């Protein structure tokens, strides 16, 4: 009985499906640099957005699914 309970308690209520694709980078990892086309509410940018341009600042990278979707 104890064993069964222990086994049950180790099971999460709703196991999340593993995300397809590579695992997310860990805290402490060096953030890979990138250079991608950029845009703001004033239009597209002439120069690419580079992470290395913001060295010395805190940068929040927020990935999201798709423009004009909720969330």
């Amino acid at each position, binding site marked *: 009985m104890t064993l069964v309970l222990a086994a049950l308690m180790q099971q999460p209520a709703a196991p999340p499906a593993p*995300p*397809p*694709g*590579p*695992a*997310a*980078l*860990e*805290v*402490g*990892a*060096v*953030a*890979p640099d*990138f250079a*991608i*086309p*950029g*845009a*703001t*509410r*004033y*239009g*597209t*940018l002439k120069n690419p*957005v580079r*992470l*290395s341009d*913001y*060295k*010395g*600042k*805190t*940068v*929040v*990278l*927020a*990935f*999201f*699914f*798709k*423009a*004009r979707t*909720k*969330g």
Partner: protein
Amino acid sequence: MNAYRDKYAQVFNDGRKVVLIAISADVDTALASWARDADYPVLFGSDTGSAVGKAYGAYNAQYKLDNRNLFVVAPDGKIAYRATPFREIDPTSYTDLGAAISKLMPADSTAR
């Protein structure tokens, strides 16, 4: 993105010393028109091909899109905080994110 916009001043220090880059697989023109329509004050990055998503482990191979993962890159270029996934509509997400950002801010930078 609405929640990001509405939390911008509070969590992102109005962009002072904190740069928010929102990244998706959309083309830059789609991002620009959306940002204009919704008045998003943030910088968008167009990750068509998802090279950045793959590098950060945000790529979703099933949908060929970037998952809603969030990373805070400290001034030294290392990842200081991550939310995988970031629950954009959950207010506690911003409490945690705000705390992570505050830890990286110089003490006087939030003063007006």
